[in-house]
């Protein structure tokens, strides 16, 4: 049936019997970015997202049929809403500044999230289109449905069609609850949606027979059989990237390399959508597309989208070899299972420009690996992560906690896996709370006893606060929004699990080595967490405590400061097996936000007695009582921290074009550096240095001192001034604060993106 309908539609184009494009079509993407907290981070996230591939591909297919679809990218609107940057072009005005919401728009007690829907609604050109196609994902599905309702309220004649992963799996319940929706296109819409439009356009009643749609006939909801998947992905056009208004601002884009994962993990929602049917685009198509996009938009990084790319080793090898043979220079990322990749393949992928891999590890518990049907060997998983690290490939190590069968031991294993992966420079662990996604085995098993405890997973939370209206929608329709619900855990308190996740997530964000050191030292991070919770309850507030306002506690710097305090005053004296080593790590990572001010310097190059050396303001200097190099080596290799040699060591952190170099200084150099305060002249420093009674095997102390100053100067640690330094007492001149932050995660479902600096297309562009 479908084939004949399809041919009929194509025939209309071919024989010119009627133009298919009089209807105006507006495609609205699903909101995928969700950070009301930090506009700057949102900017970076935004640089890495772009309009969704499904929508852009549909737009390209519709163009083939003569339509001229327009796209509203909700991520763009979200970006504008959060950024509050009037210089940005609007989606409608293209370059014209537009009014945006400012803090003055708040009513007392109103939440930020409550302002987003009216903001989006005010930008919907509801009267201008005949057909609206809204894509959907679980986390922003309430918003999508509100928008559909708003469109219907303002344009009773428009056809409203939903598609995408979430609408596909909760289609019948959605149609019954939301009469504003006319049709839901389920699964891969590349053939179904254009066909549907063409038949609707020509008032052909056969549209009701199209496979893969759910629709309404009077008061009845009818669900047609599934449509087949697109077997040959090479026949799909390049997505209409020109409709992504910000593509030229991006450092990379997503590009589909295939579809369908044949595995059947209990928590995963993509099985239903892609029917577990593994397909890949050919290397020739991929390289042609990438070459074209490089040329057109100057892109250098391509996030190659596939649920599980590396299943067919030969095809991955063929792709890598095709890249190398083509001579094209670009970097790319993909997803993989750690049991579907090997060291040799990782090396080849790295040589062909792969810089990022998303590894879904899911749980650090070998027992749960079988329960959730993932069945990874965790020892092998660690080896693959280590191999990727050796090859300079960034890995996202994705974990989930809160499975219904999860025990305390399972949770401990998962957070230990999380922290353990921090030993690798290129691994970025993330941990999400389990969300029961619709149509997954775990949902089907537990759907009759879900609870709404408002402890949201980041997989089901579109912002740090959910709009109260959307909360009501969720409460009314658990069958439409199950991902906002929870599966009761048999053993664990979900509130506890959530706090543990936040704890390790932000430990990893605020620190580099402290969580690794404490795990290595204690052997039981949950035990440390429990003690930390108790300590926090007992702790008396200090006047220096920062007010955290509405910021979630663990994401605030106050958590970092208090945890350092906990380590220094409780963990080290009470619990530590290697107290000196732990104290050293805590000290080096306790660097507070610098509140120093920029000095006024009269620079000189002259090493004269009157010259005043000063420690550069960009350095952070501290002293530890162990050999710091040995300590870090011990953390990397998981050797006994008690065996790290005691030593009087100065540690210096220096910022070098965005990278933070950590240096160890011998005791003499550290002593001398502390004397370089911009107030003492060289003539004054030498006698003070001499007073230390340093023996240097017959070398005169003044010569040693001068040598040391020259060496510090050559090492880039001190500057020279011809007059005493003064400081500007101006907040504007204060320096940026932190050193230990890791990059934020661009998304919790994507492979890691290359580091990106403002003003650069990509730091990997010189690959």
């Amino acid at each position, binding site marked *: 049936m479908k084939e004949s309908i399809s041919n009929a539609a194509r025939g209309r184009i071919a024989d010119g019997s009627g133009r298919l494009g009089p209807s105006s079509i507006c495609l609205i993407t699903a909101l995928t970015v969700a950070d009301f907290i930090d506009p700057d981070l949102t900017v970076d996230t935004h640089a890495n997202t772009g309009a969704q591939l499904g929508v852009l591909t549909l737009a390209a297919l519709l163009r083939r049929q003569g339509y001229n679809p327009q796209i509203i990218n909700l991520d763009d609107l979200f970006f504008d809403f959060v950024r509050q940057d009037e210089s940005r072009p609007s989606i409608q005005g293209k370059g014209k500044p537009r009014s945006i919401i400012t803090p*003055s728009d708040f009513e007392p007690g*109103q939440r930020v999230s409550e302002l987003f829907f009216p903001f989006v609604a005010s930008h919907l050109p509801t009267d201008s289109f005949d057909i609206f196609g809204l894509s959907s994902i679980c986390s922003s599905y309430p918003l999508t449905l509100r928008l559909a309702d708003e469109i219907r309220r303002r344009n009773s004649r428009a056809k409203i069609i939903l598609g995408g992963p979430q609408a596909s799996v909760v289609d019948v319940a959605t149609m019954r609850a939301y009469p504003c929706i006319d049709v839901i296109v389920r699964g891969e819409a590349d053939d179904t949606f254009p066909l549907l439009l063409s038949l609707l356009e020509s008032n052909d009643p056969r549209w009701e027979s199209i496979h893969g749609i759910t629709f309404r006939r009077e008061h009845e909801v009818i669900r047609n059989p599934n449509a087949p998947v697109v077997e040959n992905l090479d026949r799909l056009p390049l997505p209409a990237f020109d409709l992504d208004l910000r593509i030229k601002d991006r450092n990379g884009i997503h590009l589909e390399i295939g579809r369908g994962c044949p595995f059947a993990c209990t928590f995963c929602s993509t099985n239903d959508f892609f029917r577990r049917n593994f397909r890949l685009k050919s290397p020739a198509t991929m390289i042609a597309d990438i070459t074209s996009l490089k040329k057109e938009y100057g892109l250098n990084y391509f996030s190659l989208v596939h649920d599980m790319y590396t299943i067919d080793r030969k095809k991955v090898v063929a792709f890598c070899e095709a890249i190398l043979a083509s001579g094209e220079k670009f970097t790319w990322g993909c997803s993989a299972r750690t049991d579907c990749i090997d060291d040799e393949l990782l090396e080849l992928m790295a040589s062909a420009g792969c810089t990022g891999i998303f590894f879904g590890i899911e749980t650090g518990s070998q027992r749960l690996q079988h329960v959730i049907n993932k069945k990874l060997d965790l020892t092998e998983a660690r080896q693959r992560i280590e191999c990727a690290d050796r090859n300079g490939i960034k890995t996202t190590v994705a974990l989930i906690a809160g499975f219904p069968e999860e025990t305390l031991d399972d949770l401990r294993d998962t957070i230990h896996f999380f922290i353990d992966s921090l030993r690798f420079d290129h691994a970025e662990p993330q941990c999400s709370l389990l969300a029961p996604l619709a149509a997954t085995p775990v949902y089907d098993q537990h759907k009759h006893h879900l609870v709404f405890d408002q402890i949201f997973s980041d997989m089901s939370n579109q912002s740090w606060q959910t709009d109260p209206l959307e909360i009501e929608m969720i409460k009314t329709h658990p069958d439409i929004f199950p991902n906002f619900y929870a599966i009761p855990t048999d053993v664990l308190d979900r509130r506890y699990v959530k706090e543990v996740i936040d704890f390790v997530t932000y430990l990893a964000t605020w620190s580099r080595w402290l969580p690794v050191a404490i795990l290595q030292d204690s052997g039981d991070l949950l035990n440390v967490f429990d003690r930390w919770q108790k300590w926090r309850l007992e702790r008396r507030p200090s006047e220096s405590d920062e007010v955290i306002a509405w910021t979630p506690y663990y994401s605030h710097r106050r958590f970092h400061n208090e945890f350092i305090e906990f380590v220094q005053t409780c963990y080290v004296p009470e619990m530590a097996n290697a107290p000196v080593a732990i104290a050293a790590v805590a000290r080096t990572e306790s660097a507070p936000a610098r509140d120093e001010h920029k000095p006024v310097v009269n620079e000189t190059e002259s090493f004269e007695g009157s010259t005043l050396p000063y420690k550069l303001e960009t350095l952070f200097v501290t002293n530890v009582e162990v050999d710091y190099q040995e300590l870090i080596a011990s953390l990397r290799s998981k050797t006994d921290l008690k065996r790290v040699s005691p030593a009087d060591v100065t540690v210096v952190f220096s910022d070098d074009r965005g990278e933070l170099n950590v240096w160890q200084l011998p005791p003499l150099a550290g002593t001398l550096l502390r004397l370089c305060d911009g107030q003492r002249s060289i003539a004054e420093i030498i006698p003070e240095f001499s007073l230390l009674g340093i023996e240097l095997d*017959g070398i005169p102390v003044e010569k040693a001192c001068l040598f040391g100053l020259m060496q510090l100067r050559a090492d880039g640690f*001190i500057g020279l001034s011809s007059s005493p330094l003064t400081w500007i007492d101006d907040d504007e001149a204060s320096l940026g604060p*932190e050193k230990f932050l890791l990059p934020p995660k661009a998304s919790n479902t994507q492979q890691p993106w290359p580091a990106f600096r403002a003003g650069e297309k990509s730091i990997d562009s010189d690959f």
Partner: protein
Amino acid sequence: MAKKIELQIPSDLGLTKKQMSDLTKSFKKQLVETLKANQKASKTKSKLMVVDVLAKPKNQVV
């Protein structure tokens, strides 16, 4: 960042090669590691400040 200068230590200070070597050990920095990309670090402050502004209802915004 101050400009680096070329050392003229042997001629300026009259040190022997052995003395140079000993002093270098006593003063020269050793790289421990380069921390993971932290180019977002400078944003921490603005992040927290913006949270405060966004989070306050109208009657609290100064």
